[in-house]
């Protein structure tokens, strides 16, 4: 009974909420930022040949020196652990053989799958990295100083599908309740993703690619707009403010 609900309508609604929420957040980002006037301001890396912030060619020593003061050089362990954690977090569920089998059974198509042994190692890695984050949060003073209860809850929410899936896969305990918990926790994570702190999955890419600053990837074209969202449904409906599509 529970099993059927979790497998059918709940899973579908979770995916629908996830995709709708993601679209909403992407649109919200564009309403909160504006295009840069290239003639008015010239931030760090708007155009390669106009760049004044950094010389175009740098020697190896200069690159190393730049790396040393960057976040990779200052916090190497955290950078490596967090990169591996996030990579495994996304890749393992997407390319898991069991998940792809289920997708193929229902839709007839699916992504390619990684060998089960590899995804099993990835799950180990995710759980290990999560433990690292947990202890980091408890032990390091500067992290502890800004930690709230929600941080622990978010960590549990992220790792819960992995722990339950791991236990279910190895069939250490009762399979049926564990796989039910796995589905429920996974669906809960998908539903919460666009609306809690986990939105950093969406906004990381938007921020780092679209807003130009010295650490951004590529040449961003947008900047922050302070003074409220420039587009609101209320304003659009009542037509109090003119909405300029050119600026958007």
């Amino acid at each position: 009974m529970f099993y059927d609900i979790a497998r059918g309508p709940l899973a579908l609604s979770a995916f629908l909420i996830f995709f709708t929420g993601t679209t909403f957040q992407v649109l919200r980002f564009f309403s909160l930022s504006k295009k840069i006037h290239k003639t008015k301001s010239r931030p760090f890396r708007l155009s390669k040949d106009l760049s004044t912030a950094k010389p175009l060619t740098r020697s190896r020593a200069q690159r190393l020196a730049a790396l040393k003061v960057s976040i990779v050089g200052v916090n190497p362990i955290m950078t490596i652990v967090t990169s591996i954690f996030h990579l495994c977090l996304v890749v393992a569920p997407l390319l898991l053989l069991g998940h792809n089998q289920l997708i193929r059974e229902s839709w007839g198509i699916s992504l390619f799958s990684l060998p089960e042994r590899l995804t099993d190692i990835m799950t180990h890695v995710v759980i290990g990295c999560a433990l690292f984050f947990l202890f980091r949060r408890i032990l390091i003073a500067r992290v502890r100083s800004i930690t709230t209860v929600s941080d622990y809850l978010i960590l549990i929410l992220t790792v819960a599908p992995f722990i339950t899936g791991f236990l279910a896969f190895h069939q250490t305990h009762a399979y049926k309740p564990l796989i039910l918990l796995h589905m429920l926790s996974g669906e809960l994570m998908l539903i919460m993703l666009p609306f809690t702190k986990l939105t950093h999955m969406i906004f990381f890419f938007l921020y780092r690619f679209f807003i130009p600053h010295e650490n951004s990837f590529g040449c961003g074209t947008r900047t922050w707009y302070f003074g409220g969202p420039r587009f609101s449904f209320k304003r659009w409906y009542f037509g109090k403010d003119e909405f300029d599509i050119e600026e958007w």
Partner: protein
Amino acid sequence: MNETADAVDVKKIRRTLNKNKTQISLSLKLCVHCALCAESCFLYTHRGKDPIYMPSHKFINSLGRLHKKKGDIDRKGLEEIREIVWERCVLCTRCYCPIGIDIPGMIALTREICRDQGVLPQFDEA
């Protein structure tokens, strides 16, 4: 201090907060409290690595506090925020957020709110 100087114009704070409500709540929500921004602040590295100089700590305890209380703050709270945004931050805009939160922009916004209330840096003290 007399009565008029002591009063805080909550309406004015609320107006500024509401104007930038989405920005502020989104930035607060996106901060995953990773503390990776700590070393990017020169005040943090040069003052004994005290967590109160961490950019995210400053941002959460100044604008985050105002946002949480919806601008309903007394003079004492504003004085505490004054210390954060004017003494613990010089707005050099060198802080680095791995997710890309505009921390200097948020601090600048808090300064704007403080300036509206007449809470300014005090150079004659200490």
